[in-house]
């Protein structure tokens, strides 16, 4: 079990570095470490993130958006290691600036060829990445309805 965990950990760490560099920039440093390498099955996990030449004392010193993007990179690395058939994002783009939203969405677009993505968002830029949009509304107070808003991929194939 220890071997299996260490092997998974190593692979996830590799994906994490790759995704982090995609979302931030190629020369940015980051790492995923076991706090206690002698006890891999119990050890806490340490995240190191140094975007854009910064040297934060810990991940907590980063900004709201930078922290969010770092955590998302880790979640994504786990997803890449063991892809689930679908992946759901509920407004994870809320703390991100336009530039980061672009990078994030481009990455989703790329991976959407292998997995299905379901994205809940308020952001107009994110909506441009979406193939089919469902609008949820409450025409009658307190009762949710679904309205298909946009069938661009279907209408294009007609």
């Amino acid at each position: 079990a220890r071997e299996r965990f260490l092997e998974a950990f190593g692979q996830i760490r590799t994906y994490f570095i790759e995704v982090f560099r995609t979302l931030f920039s190629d020369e940015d440093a980051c790492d995923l470490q076991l706090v206690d390498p002698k006890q891999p099955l119990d050890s806490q996990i340490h995240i190191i993130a140094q975007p854009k030449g910064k040297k934060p004392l810990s991940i907590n010193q980063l900004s709201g958006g930078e922290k969010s993007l770092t955590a998302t990179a880790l979640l994504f690395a786990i997803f890449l290691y063991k892809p689930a058939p679908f992946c759901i994002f509920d407004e994870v783009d809320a703390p991100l600036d336009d530039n980061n939203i672009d990078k994030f969405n481009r990455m989703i677009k790329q991976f959407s060829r292998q997995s299905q993505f379901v994205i809940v968002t308020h952001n107009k830029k994110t909506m441009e990445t979406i193939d089919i949009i469902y609008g949820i509304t409450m025409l009658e107070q307190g009762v949710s309805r679904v309205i298909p808003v946009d069938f661009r991929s279907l209408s294009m194939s007609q």
Partner: protein
Amino acid sequence: MKLKTIEIKGFKSFGDKVSLQFIDGVTGIVGPNGCGKSNVVDALRWVLGEQKTRMLRSEKMENVIFNGSKKRRQASMAEVHICFENTTGLLPVEYREVTISRRLYRTGESEYMLNGVNCRLRDISTLLMNTGVGSDSYAIMELRMIEDILSDKDNSRRLLLEEAA
């Protein structure tokens, strides 16, 4: 394994039955604050077997049943059906399509079904094991989960990695 449709009735704000179809690629869910978007995500977690009320943003399980509005009475039951296409044979059954259903009655009774046949929650958990899909799935990402990762609350980072390992 591909997500095909979800059907929701009597669950949270879905006083009337709604259904969504999922496509290959990116499906989006949009709408004003409070219209029910996160409730769709909750419905997905719930039908896949979520038992932790905290993950469903509720104090007790009974609270996921539509509790009415000014003009409508509350529902007596919540039900969600989710349909998968068994494309990769990942699901260990002979069917090409698999529908998982869950019902909760206000009396407290619970029902689970696989392709319309009554079963137990653990039959569903067993079916979904190793598919990466399950109530605890790292495939459902929301801001609260991001905060847990950042604060490493209750060693959440390690739990997340263990689940994938």
